[in-house]
């Protein structure tokens, strides 16, 4: 008569590869890049995302993604553009997936105030988000505030430089039209 063996709880066996926390080859390239760019990156995110909590969220994700993808750094032409490209993609994803409501919820338990920014800067950011879709807004900020070239932007967006120039041109026209319309409305109201 065979005796039944006691049933034991199965232990999950993981086969994931364990990588060293600090990769000598790529870590050396990433660390100075982050040190030199973190502040600009943080500013870029508040320029395109009105919600500061969400922007904090995105910078965290960006740095994590950069660390995970650090092996790509040896191939990229412009490391800063590579990092800003990651931030751009994360921002677009955050803005499109309705994470604003969650960020608003998180704000309820925040224990600090937002820093006082100039009214003009905040108004311009709000104006941009009112008149331009996120992708155009981000493209204009990267081009005109952070000075990335059409080639950099093409690498960030996986488009051709010509396609980027066309999109930039359309975004520019749209912004200028909105500015002119705003000016006319202001002058009309002043004349009354």
């Amino acid at each position, binding site marked *: 008569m065979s005796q039944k063996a006691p049933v034991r709880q199965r232990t999950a066996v993981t086969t994931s590869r364990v990588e060293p926390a600090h990769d000598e080859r790529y870590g050396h390239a990433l660390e100075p890049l982050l040190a030199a760019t973190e502040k600009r990156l943080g500013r870029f995110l508040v320029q395109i995302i009105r919600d500061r909590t969400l922007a904090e969220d995105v910078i965290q994700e960006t740095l994590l993604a950069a660390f995970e993808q650090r092996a790509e750094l040896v191939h990229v032409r412009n490391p800063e553009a590579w990092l800003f490209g990651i931030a751009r993609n994360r921002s677009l994803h955050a803005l499109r997936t309705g994470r604003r409501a969650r960020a608003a919820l998180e704000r309820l338990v925040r224990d600090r105030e937002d820093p006082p920014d100039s009214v003009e*800067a905040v108004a311009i950011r709000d104006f941009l988000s009112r008149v331009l879709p996120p992708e155009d807004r981000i493209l204009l900020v990267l081009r005109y505030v952070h000075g990335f070239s059409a080639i950099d932007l093409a690498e960030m967006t996986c488009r051709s430089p010509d396609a980027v120039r066309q999109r930039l041109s359309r975004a520019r026209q749209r912004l200028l039209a909105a500015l002119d319309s705003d000016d006319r409305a202001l002058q009309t109201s002043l004349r009354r």
Partner: protein
Amino acid sequence: MEELTSIEDRRIETFLEPLRTLTPVRPTPPGSSRATRLRAVLLGGAALIALAAGGVAFARGAFTSHATPDRAPVSAGGRLACSHLVGLDAQRAATVLRARGEVVSWRLTRYVDPAQNGGVVGFASDVASPPPGTVVEDIASDPQGLVVFIRRSDDANAPPVLTPRC
């Protein structure tokens, strides 16, 4: 950086210039990460929901107990009404209940003299099956099935068995 040539380019660059003054965000320190904050919100929400559910459950229990004070399965309308189980020999009751497919747990009560036991009227213990010489004195139900309270038929300290209600 490419040379900005057109008037339009310069106009947009000037318009966007104040954006450079915005205070940058920094990666949050570990203790204040989004996950931690979100966990705090969710825990708070869960606590509120649990409190609300507890309140509702308490209210329902209170109202039910006032509206229908006796919900034992042998009460009028109960699924064992008129089965004459109360007062029946416990071993016979076990046979009847097994035949009906009921899931039963048994509680044997040993009654004592309250005057000599600090007001305690008896002690109940779980038994796997009713011992010989015991009778059913009450039946209750719980989510797992029926709970049948039994006692020795010759227990001198026991109160009289309630008569069946049919």
